[in-house]
């Protein structure tokens, strides 16, 4: 016992000792102090302004400004993305950029970009229009030429008719008619434009209906895709020309054009004018193109220049916002010159915090130092475990069930080994174990690269658990060697099998079986068992008994941890009236069963253990007969049964009564205290008394104890049976593995055909990878986790604490991502 008392505290066993501290910070060094504390990341601030709304807090304006700045930064980042540039983060030169200067800069940049965007949009629109005009010109020319030919033909006819005439007036009249007929001779006018191809058919039909068929619609697809500015996509467009006559038709057509979003462009009939306008349009297009180009390059250059600093700025703004949020948690004191803050910090961090505060005082050239002192409180402290990258994953899976109460024993210490071990008991196959090991090694080897990347959610979970995967694979290889399964094939690695035929002809090997001629196979399951008819009865018996043995061992470990908890919290009541009866009860029943299993194995007796256990309860005084495993078994059984029966009221009754007596004693003493003097601060009493009611609710305590005892008693049976899942899953794994090997690989390999062999190999590989490696891994992981969370932890774990969440810039960066 002396040795045990002198042992140092184990690293991860109990959470760090925390202390409640109070900070009094003068206003001028407040901002700097809080940001230095944020970099340190070891102080959890308590929100002293909990009852205030966000708008009533002191630094609400600064928070708003930070939010506004981060909005601007997000806008800039969006612009960067849209331009297709990547924001390359240079390793930041941490120049102390002033926040206000940054604010002004950001406002300028935002304004600049908004302007640039508006301008370029206008230019782009003009460009599109010109492009459409150019296309209309190109296509419409061909329509008009054909139309022209009709006109000229008709005009010539008219002219021919005119010239032979002698009457100049008639001739001039005719001439006038032909002249005006050039625009109006057939009464034909046209509208040319361009419309998205999808709407062209409907458009044509609509026009047809509106003009009652008095139109000629000619269309041709445009050569290039045009950017539709509404949907900012490239769409196919069709150039159309509508020939019609009459004013009313014109208005109708124009309205329909507008409704369908067709853009109309005037095309002059005259060929020379057409050529002229085409030239103009082309030149303007090229001008616009260059302008747009220059604009885009200018914008990209501007984006590039800020792209480097964007991540730095975003981090700065995030930090500032966090600092102001934390400052909002502090209170102004009476003089309004200091901020008062309260919080939790680990005791080992006190010197570091003091040093950070001193630096803050110095850096802000403040005259007054920051006061940092310990305070008392009745609140339970938060739980803080200092984990490294190996133990972090295990601590997280323990915390997923419940965060440990302050300073109670941490199951993660044992979970590091027992969790992968129980996984391996259910997964045991050293071939699959090697595959898992390779996967784990790949993840660990690329640790540095993968930890800085942003991974998908599945990969992130897998990456976070890489060390668990490593341990699981190592133990799986070990258990696979013990079960003697390599993709379900046994090997004679550790020497010869213990079994051989009874005689040289091996005639009765198929009926009566082999015989054990040597000592037991030195390491693991004998390879002769695989494939035999009696394999399952043997392995089932072995694995079931193994599960019970592991279960009883782990549950005993749990109860022993509860003993260590009681010693630590100096709760002798728990030791005497909870730990001892629990140990007696569990071990007199299931510990005895484990003993019987071991004795049966050692002696090779044929006793039926089911029978022994059941009749131990039903008729303990009967003679055991052929089920006797050792001398004195019957009296021992009677003794154990009586101990178990005594243990149940032992864990149920004494504790509530003793608690009531203790409370009565304390209460009696307190009554005198109140009479003595009213100035005696009741707060000077130990903290627990302040929290509890004056009333000691005996029935509540008694019921609580009864529930606890019943849970333990019934739980000992159900939990022991629950460990049989170790047998069940390992059987399933083994059977699946055998089926895939025999019915897929061997079957395919039996054929001489190369193709069938390859197909069989591929199916075997896929089935192994997806069903055995992925599904079975998840399944065994889950069941091992359940065994830890429920069967192991409910023997000792409280799990009702809360986690230490310090104000830390590093944690905030992780959170945001």
């Amino acid at each position, binding site marked *: 016992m002396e040795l045990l008392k002198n042992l140092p*505290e184990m690293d991860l066993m109990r959470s760090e000792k925390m202390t409640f501290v109070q900070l009094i910070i003068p206003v001028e060094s407040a901002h700097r102090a809080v940001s230095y504390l944020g970099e340190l990341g070891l102080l959890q601030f308590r929100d002293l302004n909990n009852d205030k709304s966000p708008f009533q807090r002191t630094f609400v304006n600064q928070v708003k400004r930070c939010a506004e700045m981060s909005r601007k930064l997000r806008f800039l980042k969006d612009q960067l993305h849209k331009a297709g540039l990547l924001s390359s983060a240079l390793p930041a030169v941490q120049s102390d950029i002033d926040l206000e200067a940054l604010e002004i800069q950001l406002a300028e940049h935002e304004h600049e970009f908004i302007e640039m965007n508006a301008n370029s949009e206008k230019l782009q629109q003009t460009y599109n229009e010109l492009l459409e005009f150019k296309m209309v010109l190109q296509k419409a020319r061909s329509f008009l030429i054909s139309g022209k030919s009709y006109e000229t033909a008709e005009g010539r006819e008219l002219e021919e008719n005119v010239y032979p005439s002698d009457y100049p007036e008639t001739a001039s009249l005719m001439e006038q008619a032909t002249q005006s007929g050039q625009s109006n001779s057939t009464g034909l006018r046209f509208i040319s434009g361009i419309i998205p191809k999808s709407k062209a058919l409907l458009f044509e039909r609509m026009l047809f209906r509106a003009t009652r068929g008095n139109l000629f619609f000619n269309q041709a697809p445009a050569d290039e895709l045009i950017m539709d500015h509404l949907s900012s996509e490239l769409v196919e467009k069709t150039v159309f020309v509508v020939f019609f006559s009459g004013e009313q038709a014109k208005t109708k057509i124009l309205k329909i054009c507008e409704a369908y979003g067709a853009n109309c462009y005037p095309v002059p009939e005259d060929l020379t004018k057409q050529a002229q306008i085409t030239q103009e349009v082309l030149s303007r297009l090229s001008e616009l193109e260059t302008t747009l180009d220059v604009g885009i390059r200018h914008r990209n250059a501007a984006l590039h220049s800020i792209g480097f600093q964007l991540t730095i700025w975003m981090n700065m703004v995030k930090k500032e916002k966090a600092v102001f949020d934390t400052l909002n948690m502090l209170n102004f004191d009476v003089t309004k010159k200091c901020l008062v803050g309260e919080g939790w910090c680990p005791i080992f961090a006190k010197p570091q915090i003091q040093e950070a505060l001193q630096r803050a005082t110095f850096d802000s050239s403040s005259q007054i130092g920051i006061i940092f002192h310990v305070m008392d409180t009745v609140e339970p402290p938060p739980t803080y475990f200092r984990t490294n990258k190996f133990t972090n994953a295990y601590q997280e899976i323990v915390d997923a069930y419940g965060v440990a109460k302050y300073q109670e024993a941490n199951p993660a210490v044992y979970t590091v*080994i027992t969790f992968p071990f129980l996984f391996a*008991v259910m997964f045991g196959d050293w071939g699959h174990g090697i595959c898992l090991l390779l996967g784990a090694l790949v993840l660990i080897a690329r640790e540095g690269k993968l930890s800085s990347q942003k991974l998908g959610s599945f990969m992130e979970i897998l990456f976070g658990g890489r060390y668990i995967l490593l341990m699981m694979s190592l133990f799986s290889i070990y258990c696979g060697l*013990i079960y003697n399964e390599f993709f379900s094939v046994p090997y004679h690695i550790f020497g010869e099998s213990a079994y051989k035929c009874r005689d040289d002809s091996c005639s009765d090997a198929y009926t009566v*079986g*082999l015989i054990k001629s040597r000592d*037991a196979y030195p390491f693991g399951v004998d390879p002769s068992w695989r494939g035999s008819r*009696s394999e399952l009865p043997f392995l089932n018996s072995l694995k079931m008994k193994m599960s019970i*043995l592991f279960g009883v061992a782990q549950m005993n470990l749990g109860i022993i941890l509860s003993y260590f908890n009681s010693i630590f919290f100096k709760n002798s009541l728990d030791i005497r009236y909870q730990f001892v009866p629990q140990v007696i009860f569990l071990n007199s029943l299931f510990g005895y069963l484990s003993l019987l299993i071991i004795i049966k194995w050692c002696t090779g007796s044929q006793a039926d253990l089911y029978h022994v256990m059941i009749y131990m309860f039903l008729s303990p005084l009967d003679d055991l007969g052929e089920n006797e495993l050792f001398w004195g078994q019957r009296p021992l059984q009677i003794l154990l049964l009586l101990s178990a029966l005594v243990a149940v009221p032992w864990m149920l009754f004494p504790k509530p009564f003793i608690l009531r007596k203790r409370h009565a004693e304390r209460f009696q003493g307190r009554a005198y205290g109140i009479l003595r003097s009213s100035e005696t601060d009741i707060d000077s009493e130990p903290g627990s008394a302040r929290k509890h009611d004056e009333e000691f609710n005996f029935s509540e305590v008694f019921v609580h104890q009864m529930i606890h005892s019943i849970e333990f008693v019934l739980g000992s049976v159900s939990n022991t049976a629950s460990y049989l899942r170790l047998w069940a899953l390992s059987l399933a794994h083994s059977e699946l593995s055998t089926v895939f090997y025999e019915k897929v690989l061997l079957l395919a390999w039996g054929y001489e055909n190369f193709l069938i062999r390859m197909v069989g190999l591929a199916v075997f590989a896929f089935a192994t990878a997806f069903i055995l490696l992925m599904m079975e891994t998840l399944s065994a992981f889950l069941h091992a986790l359940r065994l830890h969370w429920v069967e192991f932890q409910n023997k000792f774990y409280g799990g009702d604490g809360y986690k230490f969440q310090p104000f830390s810039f590093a944690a905030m960066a992780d959170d945001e991502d």
Partner: protein
Amino acid sequence: MGFILTTLIFLVIGIIACFCARICCNKGPSANLFHLTLVITATVCCWMMWAIVYLAQMNPLIVPILSEGE
């Protein structure tokens, strides 16, 4: 005999592993105790697994009966 011998081998391997852990990562008494706990737990688990399977085969009640086609 084989049982006790192999148990001793496990014990020796455990002690060697403890020394290796102490030599490789000596980070103060509390961390050392933690590593020691891990090594002891792992050794005990592995030994238990082996011992159970060994004991079960020492005096078997049934023997392998080969199936047709072996």
